């Protein structure tokens, strides 16, 4: 099943691959591990697997991501997650996330919503965020709505953003 992931994100997330140079050798390692388990089955079930697979990626990739942190995890639109999330690497939230998040880079898409406590290095908010966040680099774009308490080191807010609450500079 994971063979399909290797080809799909290659088209979708080319920017992360360009940024992370040594992706190729690690990729090969992972494919080898999965091959004996799932030979060719996914080829026939691709159209059905993809929509739910992207949702599962949030959970399924987590175990794999501990070894390889090059690909982002995506919580697609319509995916609702409640609980604690802890990962290395990048998480894109296009759905809804409620709870605690600890990650290197968190991007809330324009339709995404995150409620809760966030702890990350790079935080891009393009959608809705409410709660408490602690980050190093904070970017809020014009379509964003922020409600809560954010601690940051570097800040950038685009015109049109709506921010309510408290912003604190951490020294």
């Amino acid at each position, binding site marked *: 099943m994971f063979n399909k992931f290797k080809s799909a994100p290659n088209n979708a997330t080319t920017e992360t691959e360009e940024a992370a140079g040594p992706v190729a050798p690690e990729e090969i390692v992972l494919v080898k591990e999965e091959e004996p388990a799932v030979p060719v089955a996914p080829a026939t079930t691709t159209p059905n697997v993809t929509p739910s697979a992207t949702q599962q990626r949030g959970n399924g990739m987590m175990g794999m991501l501990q070894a390889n942190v090059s690909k982002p995890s995506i919580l697609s639109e319509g995916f609702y997650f409640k609980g604690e999330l802890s990962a290395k690497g990048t998480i894109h939230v296009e759905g809804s996330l409620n709870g605690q998040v600890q990650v290197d880079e968190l991007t809330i898409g324009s339709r995404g919503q995150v409620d809760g406590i966030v702890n990350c290095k790079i935080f891009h908010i393009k959608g809705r965020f409410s709660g408490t966040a602690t980050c190093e680099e904070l*970017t*809020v774009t014009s379509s964003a709505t922020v409600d809560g308490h954010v601690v940051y080191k*570097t*800040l*950038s*807010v*685009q*015109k*049109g*953003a*709506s*921010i*309510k*609450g*408290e*912003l*604190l*500079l951490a020294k």
Partner: protein
Amino acid sequence: MNPTTKQNSVFIGEGVSFKGSINAPDEAVIEGQFDGDLTVSNLLIGQTGRVTGTIKADRVDVKGELNKDISSRQLLIVRSTGKVNGTLEYGEIEIERGGQVRGNMSQL
């Protein structure tokens, strides 16, 4: 840009320290030290400007320091050298990368 010749404007130069209340219907450019209340339409705080007090404006452009309560009815821009401390009220906000904002914010 020479607002000293414009009507309804006030210009506080670098090195100048002012304490009091200013009510300028048009523009205020502050490059020195200002302590007090400020009610203007357009407020421009230069890189060397330090403003402390209650500010009510339509547009605020901060390149220097701005402290205490700020209410900008339309746009509040904090440039990369800007530092804002206090309670902010804004219609629209834009913060350039590197700008520092500390305090409570709410959108009008």
